[in-house]
């Protein structure tokens, strides 16, 4: 069994800035980490690696510095890592990203299972997993909270709004996992040493030979037209309640306000 785990390096802080003209994220000066929701995908893969002697390969697309995120996955115990990095791929939206990932995974040889995080905490679309499955022509199970494979068939739970759907099927498949799947382990010291020494091969346009019109900004059907700060426009009737007496008056005012608005 060969498992690919597509991961993403994301900016850590919530104080991320955007370039107002291009609509892209300014990554300079912001600490980059492995997408926290990808840790669950890594852990799910590690459990299958231990149980079924699966081969695990973490794969990421990004600038050369995204190697750091792959080393985090290696430190946790993932078998090996591949970085897809080429200027031609910069600015890819979820469609183009899935297209490139699909090509890269095909390039890396046979795959049985692809495990993705639910979404990345920066883009927040959650689209790359299902799009990758469609690009490969595989089925996808999203929001997976349980996954067992008996060597022939898998059984999975899918966390939906009103419960858990139980599904069965055969590989290959793409799954995207939620936190319930497993608690991510911490890297071991030996793992960190191995991760630091690992050689991470890079895949570029020279290897993948993708149509330039299908990748990067040019190959992205969507475009950010503008970005803005959400404006907040309500007028707040504000009263002070410094003591019990003021509180009683304030609550009387509030009661009347709610009554006038026909809320109570």
């Amino acid at each position, binding site marked *: 069994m060969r498992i690919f785990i597509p991961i993403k390096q994301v900016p850590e802080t919530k104080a991320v800035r*955007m370039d107002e003209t291009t609509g892209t994220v300014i990554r300079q000066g912001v600490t980059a980490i492995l997408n926290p929701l990808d840790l669950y995908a890594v852990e799910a893969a590690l459990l299958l690696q231990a149980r079924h002697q699966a081969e695990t390969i973490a794969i990421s697309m990004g600038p050369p510095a995204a190697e750091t995120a792959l080393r985090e996955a290696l430190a946790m115990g993932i078998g090996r890592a591949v970085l897809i990095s080429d200027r031609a791929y910069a600015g890819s939206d979820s469609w183009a990203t899935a297209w490139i990932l699909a090509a890269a995974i095909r390039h890396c040889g046979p795959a049985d299972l692809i495990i993705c995080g639910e979404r990345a905490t920066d883009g927040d679309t959650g689209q790359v997993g299902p799009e990758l499955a469609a690009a490969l022509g595989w089925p996808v199970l999203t929001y997976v909270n349980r996954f067992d494979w008996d060597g022939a068939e898998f059984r999975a739970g899918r966390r939906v709004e009103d419960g858990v759907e139980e599904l069965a099927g055969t590989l290959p498949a793409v799954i995207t996992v939620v936190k319930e799947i497993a608690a991510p382990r911490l890297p071991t010291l030996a793992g960190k040493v191995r991760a630091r020494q690992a050689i991470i091969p890079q895949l570029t346009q020279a290897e993948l030979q993708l149509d330039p019109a299908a990748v990067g900004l040019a190959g992205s059907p969507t475009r950010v037209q503008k970005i803005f700060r959400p404006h907040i426009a309500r007028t707040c009737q504000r009263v002070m309640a410094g003591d019990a007496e003021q509180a009683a008056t304030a609550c009387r005012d509030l009661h009347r306000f709610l009554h006038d608005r026909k809320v109570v």
Partner: protein
Amino acid sequence: MTTVPDIWILAEQRHGRLLDIAFELLARGRELADRRQARLTAVLFSAGLPAAELQRLIAGGADRVLAAEAPEFAEFALEGQAAALLDLIRSEPPEVLLAGATSTGRTLLPYVAMTAHTGLTADCTGLEIEPATGLLLQTRPAIGGNIMATIVCRAHRPQMATVRPKSCRPLPPQPARPGEIVRLPMAVTGSRLRRTGFQPLTDDGGIQEAERLVVVGRGIKKPEHLRLARELAGVLGAALGATRDVVDRGWLEYPHQVGLSGKTVTPKLYVGLGVSGAIQHLAGMQTADTIVAINSDPEANLFKVADFGIVGDLFTVVPALIRELREGGTPWAK
């Protein structure tokens, strides 16, 4: 071929019942269709719903219902529904296709968008259309809700988007609205996934359906103080919600979480107790009709979106409010 452009929404049903999101999407779609002078079509996958149920989609704003029916479509079936949707798109391409940002919409739409080679915008909270060109302006929160981004898909069709549930209200039903219902029997072949069971959730928090909501933030300080919030909720007939802080501390379960990483709510009344109003929280509640903030910190962000604010210690204010609502009467109304 139609001469008027078509706008499609995916009307979701679960266990044979149309979901609220179907009617929210109809409200969104109706506005866009009127601006663009387009036809609004609701696409529905099911094992066959009664005509009266389909008629509700017309009453909710659809000009046409395409009911794709197969026994396998009783519940969500990715491969069959993706194939059917692609066939429908190819036979009469719509300009726009909207679905709910639900577990179904967020799975089916990316799968279809990839194969149809078109753009998809996730989790939109605002949609506008250019009447002359039909270009859809899709607005969504980005980077944890700190920023809004407007996304366009210029060259590819259909323009696809998932829309956040409860981010708008359904239209009042118009039972006399005319509309066409087309039932399309579908043959489903070769699905590689098999549904083997379903475990229903027992407590979903009830916060999305609630008309009134009391929400607690970190300002309640201790889980023991939830009793006070529950009492106020009881007096108001409200459900109990929480900020992420409170859920992360384990004081309330995740189904109660309001905000970007929890649920979006649009109640008639929102009362925040010790809620600071992080932007991620505001993104999930600021479309409430009436917002009340009670917080000892006059700088709390929630006051900026509130209609009525009380600056004071909530352990003094909330008991006073409970007393007022129980015993205060409404003499000013006479």
